[in-house]
């Protein structure tokens, strides 16, 4: 039995969707820019020029690590047709607890860091676990519970900061983390590779963590029994259930994994930038993560690329205000890209489906209705 894939077609259809999406996105963004009276070509050139400066690139990569973790968290749940849209609350809750834990004890370097990371993972999983329990125990839709738990998280964090972790602090934040709990910078590693960074720019250690974790999650999803069960539960939950894959168990595990990954999204900032958790801690990555997962089509490599794109766009937007162009244009671009990808992917999927059907028909009639891949972002 040989695989039925014909390489030429496979590559073409893999590349067709993103290419089409990029084209649509560029067209719409150009139209929007022209409509607000900015010169599209000048805007793109300015962004590109600023964006590819070495310090900009380093900053974009650092940013993308955050989006990568958040996107990965969302994607794991999407793969099972679970919609964890509470990554925002999960990672901020996790960051607070990690910050508090990191300042409450002392351990030698790497161990201290490891414990802080572990606390973040557990805290994220705990917050996502609430939604999992509600769903398996009472059938509450995880879409609602995870979304609403974001607001609960905001309130709980504010309470914990004010009453417990930052009770006596003038800045309204947790104490600063000791160096032993901070992420190392990778500048030395780059120097070994012969790359020297401009002054003031540092490549965060989170980037290395993201690469390792991305490979690990890829293996988890495609090579392990858990990944297989996750895929089958996502494609046909009734059939999976009928063959011994317990849906409740899968929901709980998957939400915990998703929440655990979400917990990591706060760490690049906490352990590489702010070193403390306060009311001004950067937020919003959880929602960006949804867009990143959609754009990356739930695969770790795709998510890495889309996280880099988002990081790059956000960094290069910084120049626009100086040039008198509203930088919100970048947010519009991000939105348009995501929508274009969803549309383009659907088109590519239909083409692909027709092709496979023909390949296998063998004179047999087509199956009554070609099955829809599960609706929504998991498709």
């Amino acid at each position: 039995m040989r695989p039925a894939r014909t390489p030429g077609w496979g590559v073409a259809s893999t590349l067709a969707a993103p290419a089409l999406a990029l084209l649509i996105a560029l067209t719409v963004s150009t139209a929007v820019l022209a409509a607000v009276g900015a010169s599209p070509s000048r805007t793109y050139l300015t962004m590109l020029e600023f964006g590819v400066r070495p310090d900009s690139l380093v900053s974009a990569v650092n940013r993308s690590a955050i989006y990568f973790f958040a996107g990965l968290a969302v994607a794991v749940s999407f793969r099972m047709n679970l919609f964890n849209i509470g990554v925002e609350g999960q990672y901020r809750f996790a960051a607070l607890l990690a910050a508090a834990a990191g300042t409450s004890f002392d351990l030698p370097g790497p161990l201290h860091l490891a414990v802080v990371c572990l606390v973040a993972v557990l805290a994220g999983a705990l917050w996502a676990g609430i939604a999992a329990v509600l769903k398996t125990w009472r059938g509450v839709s995880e879409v609602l519970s995870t979304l609403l738990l974001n607001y609960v998280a905001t309130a709980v964090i504010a309470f914990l900061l004010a009453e417990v972790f930052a009770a006596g602090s003038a800045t309204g934040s947790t104490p600063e983390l000791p160096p032993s709990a901070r992420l190392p910078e990778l500048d030395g590693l780059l120097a070994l590779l012969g790359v020297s960074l401009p002054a003031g720019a540092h490549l965060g250690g989170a980037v290395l963590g993201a690469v390792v974790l991305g490979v690990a999650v890829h293996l988890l999803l495609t090579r392990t029994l858990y990944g297989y069960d996750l895929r089958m539960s996502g494609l046909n939950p009734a059939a999976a259930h009928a063959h011994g894959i317990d849906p409740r168990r899968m929901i709980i595990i998957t939400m915990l994994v998703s929440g655990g990954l979400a917990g990591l999204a706060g760490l690049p900032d906490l352990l590489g930038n702010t070193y403390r958790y306060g009311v001004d801690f950067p937020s919003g990555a959880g929602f960006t993560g949804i867009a990143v997962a959609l754009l990356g089509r739930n695969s770790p490599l795709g998510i890495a690329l889309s996280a880099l794109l988002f990081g790059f766009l956000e960094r290069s937007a910084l120049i626009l205000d100086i040039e008198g162009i509203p930088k919100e244009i970048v947010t519009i671009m991000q939105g348009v890209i995501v929508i274009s990808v969803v549309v383009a992917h659907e088109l590519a999927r239909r083409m692909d489906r027709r092709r496979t059907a023909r390949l296998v028909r063998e004179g047999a009639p087509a199956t009554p209705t070609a099955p829809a891949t599960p609706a929504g972002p998991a498709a």
Partner: protein
Amino acid sequence: MSPHAVHEPPPLVELRGIGKRYPGVVANRDVNLAVHPGQIHAVVGENGAGKSTLMRILYGEEQPDEGELLLDGETVRLRSPADAIAAGIGMVHQHFMLAENLTVLENVILGAENTRWGLLDRRSGRRAVREVSERYGLDVDPDATVEHLGVGQRQRVEILKVLYRGARVLIFDEPTAVLVPGEVRALFGSLAGLRAQGLAVVFISHKLDEVLAVSDHITVIRAGASVGSFATADADPRRLSRLIVGGELPAPAARRRGGGGEVVLRLRGLRAEAVADATLEVAQGEILGIAGVQGNGQTELIEAIMGIRAVSGGSLHIAGREATHLGTRGRRRLGLACIPEDRHRQALALPATLWENAMLGSEDLRRRSRWRVDRKAARDATGRLVAGFGIRSPSVDVPAAALSGGNQQKLVVGRELGGRPKVLLAAHPTRGVDVGAQAVIWERLRDARDDGLAVLLVGADLDELLGLSDRVQVMLRGRLSPAVPVGELTVERLGRMMTGAEPEPVDSAAENR
């Protein structure tokens, strides 16, 4: 739509020399078909013979490579189903396409709504729907919600949808596959009503008895071509069956009656939703048939035994071990396997590859896989299954969706038998598959029985039940009758028991072992 007078009316629809090729494959060649008004025209052939492709051409879903399509004697090109509908051709799909939470009326007018000032005009819609349903004797409450309707009624809604859009030619794709005997009779009544109104009905089927009972004219398709066309009155069942398969038609002939082995599935007063005190025993090497009109608790019984439906009382033993409180996986480990009733919903993940589907529920492959999925072992096992069951597929890496219904079912049966189970639950194992696949499946079930497998067979096809089972219990309103040896049963007696017209047989120790 006045019936044409004395002379032979011209065909309403005619297909001439239709050919359709897919890369490497000829799906149709030189197909001729003429359907007259006031005629029920059966198109028969095995699954894979090219009936569905032909109907997709007639309904505008596919374009023919050769030949022409004539409507009222004029050549037309149908580029899409919308064209076909506009031309008066409608399709009643085998898999219903209804919005469950909308009413009958809303489903019928969906996509073809009358509007007033841009607003939905329910009143005129309701009037039109009532008119159509009265004219053709299709009795459905327009305000009932579809989710509360039975299968037969849902099918009538599908017919209404087509009629409401002004169809003069109605294509029925395997309409009886989902129906129980009583509903089949009702459907045939509806078809006669359509014929009486001068409409043309194209009836696709592979069930000979139904075709002979309901049609006026038969066209046989084999290997993509029309190989015969004649009036039903002139048809001889044996000649017809030879035309269809190009040989003798298989039938579930009785074989060695098994039994006498150790009891490996035992239910004692099992209770679940819609199941009342189910008691039964299946021994090694026997097939116990569960007969009954659909909706009398068979689905729930099977699901309760599988472990996906909560049990509220009684006990369940598999291979001598108490399994009442085990989950599905625990029960499968004791040797339980299942061919579910609805393969698309419960047996296969259609977008997943054949090998991924073959691995579903396979304790053997799971054990091998511990942490890393053993893809090679899974692919090899699937390759053997595909070869052993004659599943038509170029590779084990294609999605299950690409297989025809019969081949999908062979995959499911092969997978379940491949785990060397002790007990097999088989719910409608040959529903909706062609005679070729049916024969393979029957043969494998009998072979497995002879090798000592205990089979609990749930079916609506009485010939299948009587041909395969050693003993039969009838399920009526959630209750099981005592077991009756198949030798004491006839189709007629079984029919009476299924409708409750015959008192249950005396519960003697001999009969209810």
